[in-house]
């Protein structure tokens, strides 16, 4: 299996990532909740979500949002991209019928030791232009073909 790989030299401050869009269904929400072992009813029971949480429908849970953001970032970096840190700020929920729109921008590129550097990004998830979740991410990239961030351990790994 082959996959394209991004290197540190390929990223620049201000660079934008390809936009990603996805039409959310009830299945998306429920599958995501079950995949993250989240049995809380607001992620699968519309009546509970409406009458207990006061939301319009069931909504995507936090761990599954993390999985969507990881997928978005590593679609861009390729398999040697190794996530170091992600901070999510949730402003609103994502419901069935929404189209998720993800956009990322590189905010910093940091040369590092041990054959890897770091790219810092902001990623925003919007629905119809309304901000739902923003994320600040830090991800390690190889500097050359021979480098591999996944091999960094202990003090050499500085997420």
């Amino acid at each position: 299996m082959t996959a394209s790989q991004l290197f540190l030299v390929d990223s620049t401050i201000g660079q934008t990532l390809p936009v990603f869009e996805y039409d959310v269904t009830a299945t998306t929400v429920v599958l995501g909740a079950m995949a993250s072992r989240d049995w809380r009813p607001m992620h699968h029971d519309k009546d509970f979500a409406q009458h207990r949480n006061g939301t319009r429908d069931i909504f995507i849970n936090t761990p599954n949002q993390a999985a969507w953001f990881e997928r978005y970032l590593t679609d861009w970096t390729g398999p040697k991209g190794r996530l170091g840190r992600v901070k999510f700020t949730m402003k609103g929920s994502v419901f069935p019928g929404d189209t998720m729109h993800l956009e990322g921008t590189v905010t910093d590129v940091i040369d590092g030791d041990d054959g890897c550097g770091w790219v810092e990004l902001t990623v925003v998830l919007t629905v119809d232009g309304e901000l739902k979740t923003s994320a600040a991410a830090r991800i390690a990239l190889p500097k050359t073909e021979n480098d591999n961030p996944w091999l960094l351990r202990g003090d050499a790994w500085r997420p």
Partner: protein
Amino acid sequence: MSDFTPLPPLVTDLLAEHKGDTLATATALLDVEQYRSVGEFPVEQGYIWTSLASVENGNPLFWDPELAQELAGGVIAPPSMISVWFRPHSWAPGREQEALPLQVHFDLKALFQLPEAIMTDNTIIFHEPVRLGDVLSTFQRLISISEVKTTKLGTGRFWVIEVVYENQHGDLVGSESYTGFGYKREA
């Protein structure tokens, strides 16, 4: 059925010590390591694939065992799955009450009698990769608790909880902090 889970002995004892003062009780819980536990099951391939499928993640690192061996020394789980490995089964033989992940969050809801809650912020820091067969252990601690706040959802308190994850070798595999808002909806 109550909206709240029973308070654990640690919290009921502190509540008695502080003569029913809920804020003083929560303050006494700051930085206290709680709920150290070992995952109910080892990191397994099926859940990795289910998670990948739920977001249509085709990263070959997680689908191609040869590539996983070459890059990571074996099959690893997507880092974002870190909290999955300590979330309890929805049922288990002999369990008498619902087991909830992030129990400190539910204790705070019960302590302050706030029936609803959402998470507003979540920071995850990833360390040693999580590998097939790993059994993770975890503990939680309360980092901060706010004064009473009113938002568009209702009136309640914000709190920050840290969750630390280690593998069976004692290696740190990650940590998370969650900001929750427990609240009562406006009448």
